[in-house]
């Protein structure tokens, strides 16, 4: 069973009131070092068996048609979720520890 990750972000020039609200709450918890927060969406599309090129092509198409609105959003990435990352994400669900690791290597 494989999975494809689709990341969608609001275009940089579009106002992100949700990100602003989160950004406004951070200093209240003592996180003073962040100058801006932008909030996006992550979709995990799961398939039977391994992810094929056809799956990826379909995922890209779905990302452009339904998962994002090209007027206000960019599809940042469409990629196969690899096994080690999956493990890391499971770990993150059990406790907060693995979290930073699973997010490494993004961008």
């Amino acid at each position, binding site marked *: 069973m494989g999975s494809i990750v689709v990341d969608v972000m*609001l275009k940089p020039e*579009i*106002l992100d*009131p*949700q990100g602003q609200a989160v950004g406004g709450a951070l200093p209240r918890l003592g996180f003073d070092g962040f100058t801006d927060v932008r909030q996006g969406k992550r979709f995990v599309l799961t398939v039977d068996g391994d992810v094929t090129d056809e799956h990826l092509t379909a995922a890209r198409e779905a990302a452009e048609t*339904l*998962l994002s*609105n090209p*007027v*206000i959003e960019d599809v940042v990435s469409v990629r196969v979720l690899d096994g080690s990352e999956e493990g890391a994400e499971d770990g993150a669900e059990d406790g907060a520890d693995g979290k930073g690791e699973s997010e490494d290597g993004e961008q």
Partner: protein
Amino acid sequence: MRIGVVTFPGSLDDRDAARAVRECGGEAVALWHGDADLKGVDAVILPGGFSYGDYLRCGAIARFAPVMDALVPAAKGGLPVLGICNGFQVLTESHLLPGALIRNDHRKFNCVDQRLVVENASTAWTSDFEAGQEITIVLKNGEGGYVADERTLDELEGEGRVVFRYVTDAEGRNPNGSYRDIAGITNERGNVVGLMPHPEHAVEAGYGPSLDGRGFFTSIITQTLESAANA
């Protein structure tokens, strides 16, 4: 004069829209999101509410409902369509109207009596108004900020396709951060109109801030009766 009102899962104002149609002398026809059938209506209203819980993006999932498979080509062919609030969001997601609606810049849900200027009184839904006329109807939304790129905004303004503009407050602000104070727009042909405020809540004495909403429904009814008489 039969005006269809579409009900999606999560539509709220479908009954009010149907009532407004009847109050203004038309026949309201209930259309169901799951039917790819417009029942031969003369015009369609996409009502306000929270179709599919506003999940993903407002209007994004409703856009792919079976009824939209029938509505989109019909609208492109000239069928008059009015999208109110969530209905406007569905129209932008369907690309029947340009731009998009995003969360209000102040992040609060609005519920106010809102003054608007009618800028285009030649669309299918605004012909009973005068250009420049000011009307007051209800505005109630959390994601009513109209956005589009500069080129699209210039095009809309240049072609007279901004149908309604918000009257701004003392500080020059509109109620949701909409670019260029745009409250409603139309397509090139003038048959598809979308706006965030709610005309269907201003059609009966004793309810709502005015009777200004009646003009939307009388416009379409008058036009359809006239075109039927000339046919």
